[in-house]
């Protein structure tokens, strides 16, 4: 079997079980909230419009954004709860995913339930009143039973939506089948992306069919087929809920990773080092940048690799650009003082923002530095990743060099490299340690005015693990062990199209090249 497929199979129990538990919990909670709202909307015209409008509004928010919005909201709530009850809760992972998906599940249930009842044959309603039913009796004995097929169709739609949207919970730190898709997209492992899609679609299909059996069983009053389908459904959920219990990793070190190749490799490297010391390591991969840091500060993850410039500009909010050592020193102090986070050490390479162009075009235009680019920029198009144009570096580049471009586009970083290589854009915001710079024959433009911040790779440790001897023993040897060349090569070995390595294989290779043995 292809190594990529084998690797995907190995993590399937974990991803699938978490996906199932998340989807089932969201749908159950969604039903619990939607059914009373549906009944309210049926009985009160005044309630009907706001309820339907709210549910529709939620549906217009893109799934990823809805999930992202719950993170800061829960963080604020957790802070309030900590102050009031002395007990906070995790704003990352399961909870924001659950709440967002619950909201997402509501519209089809409510809309189908309400339309189902309002579109009933008026003669049946008149008969129900005529025989002497109260409003409540009419609702429970006539309207809801008759609207049940329509309501069940809504539940089926909702289940399919929730299972699909649950793949988006990966970036907020909830493991799901989306992990295949997000990491596969990042490291250009299309087998993994496809595997994730097929698994999610398969799960949705099976669930839909089982709910369909229940729906038809209800219509024909066939108790046996309802019971059979319900048993299968609950058995699946129970098996999924039991899976993590069997895996036993309560005291594991949790390693975070943002969503790009280098981070996946470094997370695998950290895990390998920790496991060599006899401890177990769990991974929360594919986190957003700010999400990863906040998760660390809240002890939800124990260790991850960040970059000095990111902390300096994003979290400390500094706008000037001092020398490397100054940035490192102030970052270390700030992390310690404001968050109790330990800067354990530097890995030995930088992953800074850099402007890169195709070598051939740069030579043709005679561009070697950003200053040269400033003169030709107005004819050229620039591509950036999702955050670049919102970052202080971009402002510094614009102000320092007077840069101006004909057009500006944003890409997911894998596609950003493809875009510049394919000539869709002329300049991109590359990362200096990225293997794809060499792979696509790009050149990095000099920064003579030194407006771009230094981005040393740093190992950050959560407050509760600050004095953890095992962590120090495992990760201490990484100090200064990785230079930019081997990091680029390791990344490229994962990103390239042929003879791809998995992040874990690249991490082992990296450890060997760094002289750490393996």
């Amino acid at each position, binding site marked *: 079997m292809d190594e990529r497929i084998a690797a995907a199979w190995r993590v399937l129990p974990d991803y699938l079980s978490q996906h199932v538990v998340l989807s089932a919990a969201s749908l159950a909670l969604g039903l619990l909230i939607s059914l009373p709202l549906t009944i309210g909307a049926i009985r009160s015209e005044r309630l009907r419009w706001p309820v339907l409008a709210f549910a529709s509004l939620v549906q217009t928010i893109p799934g990823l954004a809805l999930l992202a919005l719950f993170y800061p909201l829960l963080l604020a709530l957790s802070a309030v709860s900590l102050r009031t009850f002395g007990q906070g809760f995790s704003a990352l992972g399961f909870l924001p995913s659950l709440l967002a998906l619950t909201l997402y599940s509501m519209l089809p249930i409510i809309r189908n339930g309400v339309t189902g009842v309002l579109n009933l*044959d008026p*003669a*049946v309603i*008149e008969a129900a*009143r*005529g*025989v*002497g039913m109260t409003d409540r*009796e009419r609702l429970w004995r006539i309207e809801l039973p*008759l609207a049940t097929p329509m309501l069940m169709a809504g539940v089926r739609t909702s289940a399919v939506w929730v299972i699909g949207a649950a793949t988006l919970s990966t970036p907020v730190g909830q493991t799901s089948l989306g992990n295949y898709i997000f990491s596969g997209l990042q490291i250009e492992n299309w087998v993994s992306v496809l595997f994730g899609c097929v698994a999610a679609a398969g799960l949705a299909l099976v669930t839909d069919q089982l709910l369909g059996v229940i729906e038809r069983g209800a219509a024909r009053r066939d108790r046996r087929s309802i019971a059979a389908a319900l048993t299968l459904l609950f058995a699946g959920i129970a098996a999924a809920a039991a899976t993590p219990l069997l895996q036993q990793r309560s005291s594991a070190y949790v390693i975070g990773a943002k969503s790009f190749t280098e981070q996946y490799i470094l997370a695998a490297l950290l895990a390998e080092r920790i496991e060599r010391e006899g401890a177990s390591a769990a991974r929360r991969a594919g986190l957003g940048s700010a999400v990863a840091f906040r998760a660390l500060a809240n002890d939800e993850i124990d260790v991850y690799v960040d970059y000095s410039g990111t902390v300096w500009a994003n979290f400390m909010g500094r706008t000037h650009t001092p020398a490397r050592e100054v940035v490192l020193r102030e970052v270390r102090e700030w992390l310690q003082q404001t968050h109790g986070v330990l800067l354990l050490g530097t890995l030995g390479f930088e992953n800074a923002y850099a402007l890169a162009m195709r070598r051939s075009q740069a030579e043709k235009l005679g561009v070697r530095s950003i200053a040269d680019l400033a003169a030709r920029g107005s004819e050229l198009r620039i591509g950036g990743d999702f955050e670049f144009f919102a970052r202080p570096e971009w402002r510094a580049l614009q102000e320092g060099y007077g840069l101006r471009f004909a057009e500006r586009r944003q890409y997911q970083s894998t596609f950003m490299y493809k875009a510049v290589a394919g000539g869709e854009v002329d300049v991109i915001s590359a990362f200096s340690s990225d293997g794809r710079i060499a792979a696509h024959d790009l050149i990095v433009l000099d920064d003579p005015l030194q407006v771009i911040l230094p981005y040393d790779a740093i190992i950050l440790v959560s407050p509760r693990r600050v004095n953890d001897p095992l962590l120090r023993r495992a990760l201490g040897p990484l100090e200064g062990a990785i230079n930019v060349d081997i990091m680029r090569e390791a990344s490229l070995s994962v990103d390239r199209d042929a003879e791809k390595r998995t992040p874990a294989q690249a991490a082992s290779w990296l450890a060997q090249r760094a002289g750490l043995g393996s």
Partner: protein
Amino acid sequence: MNMHSAAAPAIELRGVSKSFSGAPAVRSVNLTAPHGAFIAIIGASGSGKTTTLKTINRLVEPDSGEILLEGEPVHASPPHLLRRRIGYVFQGVGLFPHMTVGENIAVTPRLLRWDEERITQRVAELLELVDLPQDYAQRFPSMLSGGQRQRVGVARALAARPAIMLMDEPFGALDPLTRDALGREYRRLHERLQLTTVMVTHDVLEAMLLADTILVMRAGEIIARGAPHELMNEHADAAVRELIDTPRRQAERVRSLIENAAAHG
């Protein structure tokens, strides 16, 4: 019931009026139905006959006027309790499609919390009364013909032994043969169960053949009332004459056809 019941009529409407968004539908209608009466209300569509009927079981609440059943104002009890004492049959039938015929008939007794044994017995009785086979109790309404459905509708209305039956175009959607048969059968039930019936119809012939008293409505008012033979005689109002004359002319044409057929036969 109460102390008036012996003397009071089964149904009495006093000056009942109703408007829908400003447009008057019923204007100051008076109606008295003694025990055992069979009253038909006829008139064109929009004349207010259905609205008048529905004020009796409070499917429509009047703006003014008084409605008494057995001398007791209908407002004395909540509408759902009132309706459980009154049979109601209408053109749409409105059988509950998710319930069997037996369950449909048993609806009102169940609302009244009769015990199951009594309900089963009552369902069997009613199937016999409306001339349907006993095994129909397990069938669903979708498996029945239109005439059979309305028989179930009548059985459901009679289930909790009401003294009063309200019927709104009950046989309007049926073919002429079924319609005639069901009408005659219902008249027999009316006699046998000593019911008081108010029936709304736009079919003058049906009204004349079934009812003891006919009320003619136009634009929300009762413009004529009387026994069928009284209305057959010359009436002051031209519109009433027109309405009543139609079935008489039809009957005369049919009679001459029959005589012709006999002469040529």
